[in-house]
């Protein structure tokens, strides 16, 4: 299992009301990352966070880290406030596609194997805010154009129900698959963020099964939330059973990619936050290895969840005694 972190979470963070942590250079963030046991990969934000290729390569080599993904940010520039890929303004769409292509160039030069992109400024806030059909066509058009550019670097599109827009255009696993199918390029993938899936009302395990069944590539971000908002909390802290189920499916699907932490350490120590993510994930992963997976498959085929839950209880309550007479 390969663990990575989105490096921007190791520097200055903010929400609508507060600011957290200190601003750090990419080198300082990578140095912090390298101190977290089990973490070997970095997802870095292009173009705002990265340095030139040679410098970045030196940092990564010195710290024994790899690039998990290049994350292209097409939301922070004020020009994108009303949309990027779906913008009715061709100059804005051009800027977005140029940034995505530049991220692919950078990924290739860095030896990275993917670019990931979450188009959060694309969507709407009110009824009658946008023409949904034209917005979708524009998104399909730009994604097709970028997917064809430097095809050896696949483009992974990340879905999210909302933020910064009240409703994001690319809001679910199913919608992301519709996009991939509309574009029709196998060099596309989907970044599945467990938190986005949960607060979008999905079961992350079902979502990853759906994506894997489509044949499109996928990449995983982990965190948790209260199913209302993308709080980017520590993995498994709110939806432990869902997280175990999700990891079960990753194991069943023989996922060999990165498990990238997308947790926002706003009111707790950052390194402890990510160390927890790695630990809890490894514990569940290794514990699943001790389970009789064929029995889980057997029960799932028969829609028998109670026997599976009884098996899973051992994970949480292995040392707890059960009083006589209880079942």
């Amino acid at each position, binding site marked *: 299992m390969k663990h990575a972190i989105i490096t921007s979470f190791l520097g200055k963070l903010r929400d609508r009301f507060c600011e957290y942590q200190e601003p750090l250079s990419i080198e300082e963030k990578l140095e912090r990352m390298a101190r977290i046991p089990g973490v070997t990969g970095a997802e870095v934000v292009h173009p705002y966070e990265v340095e030139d290729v040679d410098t970045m390569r030196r940092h990564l080599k010195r710290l024994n880290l790899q690039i998990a993904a290049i994350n292209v940010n097409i939301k922070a520039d004020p020009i994108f*406030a009303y949309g990027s890929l779906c913008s009715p303004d061709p100059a804005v769409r051009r800027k977005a596609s140029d940034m995505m292509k530049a991220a692919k160039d950078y990924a290739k030069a860095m030896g990275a194997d993917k670019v990931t992109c979450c188009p959060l400024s694309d969507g709407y806030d009110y009824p009658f805010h946008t023409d949904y059909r034209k917005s979708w066509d524009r998104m399909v058009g730009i994604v097709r154009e970028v997917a064809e550019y430097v095809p050896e670097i696949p483009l992974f599109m990340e879905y999210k129900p909302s933020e910064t827009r009240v409703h994001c255009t690319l809001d679910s696993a199913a919608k992301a698959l519709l996009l991939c199918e509309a574009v029709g390029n196998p060099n596309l993938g989907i970044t599945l963020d467990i938190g986005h899936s949960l607060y979008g009302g999905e079961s992350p395990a079902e979502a990853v099964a759906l994506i894997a069944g489509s044949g499109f590539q996928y990449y995983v971000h982990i965190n948790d939330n209260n199913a209302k908002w993308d709080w980017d909390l520590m993995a498994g802290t709110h939806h432990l059973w869902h997280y175990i189920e999700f990891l079960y499916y990753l194991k069943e699907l023989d996922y060999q990619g990165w498990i990238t932490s997308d947790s926002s350490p706003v009111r707790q120590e950052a390194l402890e936050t990510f160390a927890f993510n790695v630990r809890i994930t490894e514990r569940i992963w290794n514990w699943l290895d001790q389970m009789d997976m064929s029995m889980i498959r057997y029960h799932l085929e028969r829609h028998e969840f109670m026997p599976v839950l009884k098996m899973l209880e051992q994970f949480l309550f292995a040392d707890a005694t059960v009083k006589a007479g209880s079942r």
Partner: protein
Amino acid sequence: MRHALIVAFFGRLRDRFCEYGSPSRIDEKLARAAAVQGVEGAEIIYPDECSEPELVADALSATGLAVSAINVNLKSLPEFQRGALSSGDAQVRRKALDLILGAKEFAARIRADRVTCAPLADGVDYSFQHNYSSAWRRTVELLRTGLDEGPSLPIHLEHKPGDPRTRGLLRSSDVLLRLLNDVARSAAGITFNIGHASVSGTSPAEYLSHVLRLKIPLYVHFCDAAGEWDWDLLAGSQHIWAFCEVICALQAAGYEGWLTDDTFPVRADPHELFSANIHRVSLITRSAMLGLSKFESFRTPFPMASTCLPLC
């Protein structure tokens, strides 16, 4: 009912990923607020917008705006990140109390009628994060002190489901009413936020009915929410009938206080958005007055809002 604006919305705004608008001085914000037709009042943030009291007083005088409330900010300072009123750290609570008392002094000085406070730093993100009983007790004690000391002015607490905490201490008006019962001070009031009471599609009129029943000092913020989040949207843009219902309920209860616009103009021109908001609320208010006689249908099992309100 009189219209006011939270004037901070005329300055620099931000969310987690983007920034909007430009930084502005308080006199500029007040001038922009006064330019919105129908606006008579301003809600001002303490201490952020009150560092130059003379400038505030002069700008109020120049614009003719009244102060609907002084809003004491107990969330932005780094020491409040893990709580303010409920903090386990006595120094942090002392700082929160000093700010409340400072806000009361400032409010008295510029003849504002109240201090309002949304204690958004108070709450939790995870299970096992704090002791709920102790946090509640500390909040009650601090509020009692804040009400008992300093100028004799009401303090209105505002409820909100979360943000920046995952689960806010005062996450609903019902929880807040419970708190005010424990605080047991007649000057402890509620800032009822219609948008916060609309998160998750709940009924703000139903929540408000409990506030009205208990005759708690009332001050009102309005906006709309979408889904599970306080987006501070244009009033009635997501839950039009729920918004009409709560305005009718205020009207029926004889509420004559401020209706303060708490709409977040991040991808819209603030002047245009606030003007549209106030225009819409004025239409609904007038419709409610016209339909108040039919409003008796509130007592029938299935009132038809569209027949009560000549909106269309």
